[in-house]
């Protein structure tokens, strides 16, 4: 893994966004991708939250990686992530109260996202600060882009609007605002990307955890 330090920073970014996209490819941290994506605003906010937490957590874990004792690695990392989540929650509560009220619970739950912990442990705890930063940026971006994609379709189909502005005037498909609609949106998009992968890039299909 440590050899990855040599790979380009752009490569790390790209890896997060495409190669190991946390939502569509690795299929981790799915809860928010369903929960908050019925509006683009929610998706954006959540994506930004994860983006910051991931980046900050990666950097701080990388900083303290030689200090933390092996035995308590896990609780320590969880604590660091929890700290950043809390901090970001406080900041959002202070400066974006209206939105925070809508998706507050899910923002708090970022702490339990497998993707953040796994990147921290898998990458940041074994790499220097700068590569960890870029890994975090890449992963965070990947997550953000995925959430925006999903919420774009859900808001458009479910509410007929984008960022709250009305686009279509007929009665929209309310299902896409509901939880069930979130599952459909993610499932169909995943299947669609798999199809693209298989059709045009000769992939094997079967994304993420589906071995």
């Amino acid at each position, binding site marked *: 893994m440590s050899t990855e330090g040599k790979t380009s920073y752009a490569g790390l970014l790209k890896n997060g966004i495409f190669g190991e996209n946390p939502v569509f490819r690795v299929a981790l941290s799915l*809860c928010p991708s369903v*929960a908050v994506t019925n509006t683009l605003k929610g998706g954006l906010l959540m994506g930004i939250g994860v983006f910051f937490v991931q980046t900050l957590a990666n950097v701080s874990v990388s900083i303290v990686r030689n200090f933390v004792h092996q035995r308590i690695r896990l*609780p320590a990392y969880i604590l660091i992530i929890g*700290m950043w989540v809390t901090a970001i929650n406080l900041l959002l509560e202070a400066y974006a109260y209206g939105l925070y009220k809508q998706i507050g619970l899910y923002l708090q739950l970022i702490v*339990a996202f497998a993707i953040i912990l796994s990147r921290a442990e898998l990458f940041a705890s074994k790499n220097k600060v700068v590569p960890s930063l870029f890994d975090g940026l890449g992963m965070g971006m990947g997550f953000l882009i995925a959430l925006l994609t999903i919420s774009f379709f859900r808001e458009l189909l479910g509410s007929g609007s984008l960022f709250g502005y009305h686009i279509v005037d007929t009665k929209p498909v309310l299902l896409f605002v509901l939880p069930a609609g*979130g*599952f459909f949106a993610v*499932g169909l998009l995943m299947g*669609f990307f798999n199809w693209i992968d298989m059709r045009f890039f000769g992939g094997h299909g079967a994304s993420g955890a589906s071995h």
Partner: protein
Amino acid sequence: MGKLLELVIAASLVNNFVFTRYLGLCIFFGVSKKMDTAVGMSVTFISVMVISSSLSWVAYHFVMAPYHLEFLKILVFIVIIAAFVQAADTMMRKVAPALYYKLGIYLALITTNCIILAVPLINADSGYSFIDSIVFGFGSGLGFALALVIMASIREKLEVADVPKPFRGLPIAFVLTGLIALAFIGFSGLITL
């Protein structure tokens, strides 16, 4: 008593965490591939749920609330749960290895399950009493267990289905969960909390 029953039904069916609150999905999709793992996870999960709701209630009401440290609740809850789970894991392995290999192995999966954190947070926000908190934790665990078992049984059936290739695996599992969630809408309005 009636209220407690309502709490259980509301947490397990009406507001099922997986199907209406979209939480715990990673574990849900990972563990529901096989019935055995689904059942093992369910039992372990319900027990941890009950214990962690009570632990966090104690921490919240005896330490955090008096000293105005509510803002630390995310941090404190997750750390309490992580520490408890790790301690339970270590101890069980030594003290009751048979039980450990049947149920304890699922303990590790629990810290990354959002539900385990969401329940104490909701407990704290809704101002539930100690008993309420435990019952709510139990109901939530039950709901998750129900979701797991249903999903596992359907996915075992799906194994032999001719699902179009791009949709095999997770995509179809998502669509399936969506369909189940759609069916679970039938319970809505049954109980309002």
